[in-house]
């Protein structure tokens, strides 16, 4: 019988699973305690804001991605906490750090769903930076999205997936 996610759909769509994963990664690897934050509509337009988006794809029993998005300042702050270094610009180390955070959040999240742990692979992280861009995912069936903050940093984490088989 083919393996399906039907019996675990409540785990896949549970925002608490995402939050526990994010808190674990940030506390263990960065040494900061995050908390959830409301989604605020930015007063600045997308053209004005330099942003960073990290994407780790899911393949196998689940098709989708884990996506982390933040502004440049938050990305530099996350990378600083992670490495102990100070960053004046959005350089390759900052991008690398955000990609790795996304990788660990994706891994931690899928490990909380038994069927996904062994039957869902992760892509290597891709990191996009710039202004006024859209990330297009082909017809995502659903999305779990949450904003988090620590100190002055804010970042958005989303799990987007195709239809659960």
């Amino acid at each position, binding site marked *: 019988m083919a393996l399906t996610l039907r019996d675990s759909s409540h785990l896949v769509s549970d925002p608490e699973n995402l939050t526990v994963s994010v808190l*674990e*990664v940030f506390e*263990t*690897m960065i040494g900061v305690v995050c908390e959830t934050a409301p989604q605020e509509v930015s007063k600045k337009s997308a053209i004005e804001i330099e942003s960073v988006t990290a994407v780790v794809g899911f393949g196998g029993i689940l098709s989708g991605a884990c996506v982390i998005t933040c502004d440049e300042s938050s990305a530099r702050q996350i*990378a600083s906490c*992670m*490495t*102990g270094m100070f960053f004046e610009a959005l350089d*390759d*180390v900052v991008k*690398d*750090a955000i*990609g*790795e955070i996304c*990788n*660990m959040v*994706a*891994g*931690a999240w899928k*490990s909380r769903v038994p069927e996904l*742990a*062994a039957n869902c692979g*992760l892509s*290597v992280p891709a990191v996009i930076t710039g202004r006024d861009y859209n990330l297009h995912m082909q017809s995502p069936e659903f999305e779990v999205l949450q904003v988090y903050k620590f100190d002055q940093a804010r970042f958005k984490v989303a799990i987007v997936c195709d239809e659960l088989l």
Partner: protein
Amino acid sequence: MREIRALIVDDSSVMRKIVERSLRQAGVESLVVLEAGSGVEGLEVLKAKAVDLILSDINMPAMDGLEFVRQLRSQRLAEGVPVVMITTESSEEHVKQAIEAGAMGYIRKPFTADQVKQKVLSLLPAA
């Protein structure tokens, strides 16, 4: 503790630094770190230099960590040197694959320095 020469294989330079920092926090103070950004680079390092310990990511472009371990075992590089996989993949199936490939230890990301210490000390021969 005697000097330890560790090869850290990860496509992320940030993760390589974090693993190195964890080794130092774990009390491996006399530490010489060699770095490689892929399995291919890791094999080249091992052809030129002797190491006491190898820590490798699994999910890497070009040559992943499992293939890297298979290759170093089949090419008889770093014979007897413990290999620890450090990865986000943590299912029993992934652990089994790593052990079958030739790894001797497994650390799941995210990890603490204490977890690195426990694993490394359990694999390194006593001084």
